[in-house]
């Protein structure tokens, strides 16, 4: 009869590859609602971080002399 497949062949590497492929498919699927939600929430958090660190801008400060 046929030999049973070795556990090591059907173990972690294949599972990890499938996981990575699924993660890549989610990250690049622009029509996926969950993916867009996560991306835009992350952008919102990044925007808030940028906004909170803008206090030292002075638009009328003299230009530095070379």
């Amino acid at each position, binding site marked *: 009869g046929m030999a049973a497949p070795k556990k090591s062949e059907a173990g972690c590497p294949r599972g990890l590859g499938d996981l990575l492929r699924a993660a890549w498919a989610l990250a690049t699927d622009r029509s996926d*609602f969950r993916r*867009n*939600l996560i*991306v*835009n*929430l992350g*952008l*919102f958090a990044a*925007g*808030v971080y*940028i*906004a*909170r660190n*803008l*206090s030292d*801008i*002075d*638009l*009328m400060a003299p230009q530095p002399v070379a």
Partner: protein
Amino acid sequence: MGNRAAAERRQLHNPGSFERLHRRCKDVFPQQIEGVKLVINKNLSHHFQAAHTIHMSSMSPHYHFNATYSGKRQAGPGENFPLLVGEMDSSGNLNAQCILLLAERIRAKAAFQTQQEKFQTWQFDSEYRGDSFTTTFTLGNPDIINESVIVVGHFLQSITQNLVLGGEMVYHRRPNEEGAILTLAGKYTTPQWIATLNIGRGGAHASYYHKANDQVQVGVEFEASTQSRETTFSFGYQLDIAQANMVFRGSLDSNWVVGGVLEKRLAPLPLTFALGAFMDHIKSKFQYGFSVTVC
């Protein structure tokens, strides 16, 4: 203990209206300008103002006439009652509002919108402003014959000097269909930043406004809708250069739309000149225009 609570309550302020929760953040973003627009404002008296708007664009040219009457009764700075506003365009479409101060804390509003000879919108609001809360009741397009109506209730309560919590209930009824949506709202205000969140079954809307200094203001918005399964992120900023009488507003969002509007007051003339452009990278659409406002 009761006196302390009452004293603390006395320091709470009225939270304003529900519609203005995200107003500070939204004001930072530029308004799209397309084509050429000329606006002439004329104060005919202390109470009566008229405005003519001529808008020439690739869609269709339009002329709007706007008349505003504000009465003598003053509830606050810049708030005069009764307030009557009417705007009509060259196609015969009318937009009219009437806001009355029925009592010191009670306001009523009626708004109508017509397209040609048909009514599109007829809406009646009443608002009660307490020391630390605001409650509003709205009837939208009530139609007894067709048994349809939209009822909206808002409530906002100041919990502390910085924190406001509240909610909105929208009920709609049409023949063979009715439904209701509840949305919770919260707003945290400090002298330098304001964070606001609306969340409910229909989606979420979060905004963050930050005043970096006298020259720079930033707004960040996030919107998600469970009905249309769409989410949007927007980033906007406003640069005020008072010495140059100039304001620049820029924005970019997750739909790859980038835009900016530059406004310059041409002192000592009573003119404001605005130049704007918006680029939609996904649709490859570019919109630009300028406007002149005469005060």
